[in-house]
């Protein structure tokens, strides 16, 4: 399986924060959800992929090429959507397209106009007149207008209403029907992951704690629940992350370690929400 993105041992430090030993790959034709709490290192990793940040060490390959040595080549086929817009606020949508077109040999005015139409964006409207959801849509229109093979989205659905999020997910599903294209998107919203992600990568405190297919992930971990009295020391050493109340506890554990459960503890299939919550609570156990 060819990888569209390969990251090996990426390290980037800003004082006492940063990312360390980040490694994961994204095969062609798939969508990867990049998950982590605020400050986990998602945006830092994405910026390093786009060479917005200079990595301290490590290797990043996109389309099999080093992202530094072949920067212009590689970026020609990448579409980017960030959580905040980055166009001159006095530009109209027509001017925005005209500003970007010369950089991309595969830019299609027809595609751009089609996207504006689809999103019901008036071409003569200025960037500063757009709502947050519309600003995200114009980014998508610009990202897709030059027929990229790799879409990178950094928290694109934050602050969007359910309808706008659904529209975005539909666009991504349509994009990925071409098996030579891939998507990497970072998100907090687990329902987005459940809808479209094939792969999930968890990052916590600058380290990757899990990177695998969504199915493997859901298969590998289960939720365990029980009374506080059943939360033995051996279970605590096995459980990855958990919460406890005055009377009971709930957490996640590897399915292979179910034998360590005592009586009175039940195991259930985990949802993506639960995995995200409990990985965040106990992520450092997985990075050791």
């Amino acid at each position: 399986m060819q990888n569209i993105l390969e990251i090996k041992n990426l390290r980037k430090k800003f004082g006492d924060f940063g990312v360390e030993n980040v490694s994961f790959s994204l095969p062609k034709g798939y969508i990867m959800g990049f998950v982590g709490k605020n400050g986990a290192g998602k945006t830092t990793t994405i910026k390093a992929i786009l060479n917005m940040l200079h990595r301290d060490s490590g290797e990043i390959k996109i389309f099999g090429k080093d992202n530094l040595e072949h920067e212009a080549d590689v970026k020609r086929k990448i579409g980017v959507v960030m959580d905040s817009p980055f166009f001159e606020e006095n530009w109209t949508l027509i001017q925005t397209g005209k500003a970007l077109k010369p950089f991309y040999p595969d830019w299609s005015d027809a595609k751009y106009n089609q996207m504006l139409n689809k999103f019901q964006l008036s071409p003569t409207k200025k960037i500063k007149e757009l709502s947050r959801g519309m600003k995200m849509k114009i980014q998508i229109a610009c990202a897709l207008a030059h027929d990229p093979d790799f879409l990178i989205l950094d928290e694109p659905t934050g602050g969007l209403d359910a309808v706008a999020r659904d529209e975005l997910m539909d666009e991504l599903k349509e994009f990925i029907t071409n098996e030579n294209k891939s998507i990497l998107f970072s998100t907090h919203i687990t329902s987005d992951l459940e809808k479209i992600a094939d792969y999930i990568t968890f990052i916590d405190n600058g380290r990757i704690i899990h990177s695998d297919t969504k199915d493997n992930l859901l298969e590998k971990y289960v939720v365990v629940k029980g009374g506080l009295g059943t939360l033995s020391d051996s279970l605590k050493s096995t459980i990855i992350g958990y919460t406890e109340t005055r009377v009971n506890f709930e957490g996640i554990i590897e399915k292979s370690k179910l034998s360590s459960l005592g009586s009175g503890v039940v195991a259930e299939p985990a949802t993506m929400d639960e995995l995200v919550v409990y990985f965040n609570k106990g992520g450092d156990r997985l990075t050791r």
Partner: protein
Amino acid sequence: MKNIKALLKLDYLLVAPYWLWFVLFFGISFILGVFMNQGFAFMVSWTIFAGTIMAFPFENTEKSNMNMLFAQLPTNRKSIVSARYMFIFIVLFLSLIIGIAGGLILDTIFSNSHAEMYYEFGINLSLFSLPMMLLSLSLSFGLYLLNVGFQTPFLYKVGYKKGKIFMWIPIIVVQAAMMLPAILNLFNVENPNRFNVFNIMIDNSTISTFIALGVGIVSAVLSYIFSRKIYLNKDV
């Protein structure tokens, strides 16, 4: 080369919203030229101001978060800096053309007062004379590039918000140098006119022409080298 053209267009789009500043600075420079009865004064002050306006693409970039856009475009950072400096030179040459045109108009209007100044200095001070034209061109060239050359690396390093003071420092220094005789006069310094930069340059017009050209070229080259080094290593 194709990317350079696209980047130049982007820089033009970044500076275009500040057209009113061009008009304002043109007006101020023209009034100064009228006040001093000198096309030379208009030409030089206008080009210095035009250099100051070259800081505004940085403001616009920062305001619109466009550093993110530049960072994801399929081009490299060397090209981004090179295009910015090419744009600076394009604006310089356009400014010189406007400066010459405006200066010649003023000198035509004030040809009588030039006759009086000719009596005082012994040379023709209008832009219609070749030595004065060459001095004006080189001084405009040199001061524009000194202005832009000074501010641009700082703006790349710290951004517009923190670095905007640097766009005004060259103007303040030049204005202070021009006002030096008047200031010294206030402190009863004997013969303050011997510190008149304008007089010194007129008296040594040939060497002043070459010095101004040299200052401009050296400023531009050093500025480009520093800007490139800073931007290539900058985290967006």
